[in-house]
C-alpha cells in the first residue's frame, strides 16, 4: 500500500469540495511538486486550482514543504492558499 492522506484548506477546500481524501500514490510521484502536477491532471476545478500559476502552499506531515519536498506512503500532505491569519 502506498496511500497518502490529502488535506485541503480554505478557498481551495471549498473549490475542490472536500477537506480530505485518501490517495493511492502513483509510483512515479515522489515530491510535492509532482503530486501537485498530478492533481492538476484531474481537470476542471483541479486543473484550475493546481495550475502552476496558482499561488499555492503545501505542508508534509504538518511542516511547510516546498515543491522538492519528498512524499512517501503514509504522509499527510496538505495544500492551501497563502495564509492570512493575524
Amino acid at each position, binding site marked *: 500500500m502506498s496511500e497518502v492522506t490529502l*488535506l485541503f*484548506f*480554505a*478557498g481551495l477546500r471549498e473549490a475542490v469540495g472536500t477537506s480530505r481524501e485518501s490517495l493511492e500514490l502513483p509510483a512515479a510521484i515522489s515530491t510535492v511538486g509532482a503530486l501537485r502536477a498530478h492533481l492538476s491532471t484531474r481537470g476542471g476545478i483541479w486543473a484550475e486550482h493546481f495550475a502552476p500559476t496558482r*499561488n499555492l502552499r503545501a*505542508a508534509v506531515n*504538518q*511542516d*511547510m514543504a516546498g515543491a522538492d519536498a519528498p512524499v512517501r506512503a503514509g504522509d499527510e500532505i*496538505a495544500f*492551501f*492558499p*497563502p*495564509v*492570512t*491569519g*493575524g
Partner: protein
Amino acid sequence: MPVRVQSEDFDLTREVAALRAAQGTRAAKIGAIATFTGTVRDLNEVDGKSTNVSQMTLEHYPGMTERALEKIVADAKSRWDIFDALVIHRIGALMPLDQIVLVATVGAHRGEAFAACEFIMDYLKTEAPFWKKEATLDGARWVDARSSDDSAVARWGAGGGEPASEQKSAPENAGTETTSVDAPKSAPTKGAGA
C-alpha cells in the same frame, strides 16, 4: 512557551499576569513585557478599494497551526534574549471590534521584548496556517495574502536576528525597565547569523 488556538476571547491583563507568574523565581528579573493585540476591523482594503466587513471566519489546520506557532516562538527565543512568549490566536466567527490575536513577550529589557514580539507577529502572518474569510455586502470571500506581509518577514533575514535596516544598541537600563541585578548580556541577539 504557551501557544493557544481557541474560539474564546482572551483577557490581556489576565494573560500577562499568568505569563509573568509562569516564570517562577525569574519573574522578578523581568524588566520588559511587550504585547501586541490584533483586532478585527470593519473594512478591508483591496487594490485601494475599501469594503465593509460585517463578519469574519477564521479557519486553521488543527495540529499544524499549533506546531507552526511553537516553532515561531522557539525561533524568537533563540534569536532574542527573552524569557518566554505567549501566542493566542482565535478561530471561528469573529466580528469587527473583536480581539483576534495576542502576542506577549517577557524579558529583562525592552529592546529584545519589542523585537521578539514583532518578529513573532510577522512570522505568524506568513507561516502559521490560518485563513480569513470575510462576509461583506457583496458576499463572502477569502482574504488574499498581502505582499506587505512577505516584505515584513523578509526584513528579518533568513538567519539574522535583527532587521537589516535597524541597528540596536546593547540592552540599556534606562526608561521604565526595571534594572536587572544580572550582568547585562554582551550582545543584543543570540544566534544571529546562525
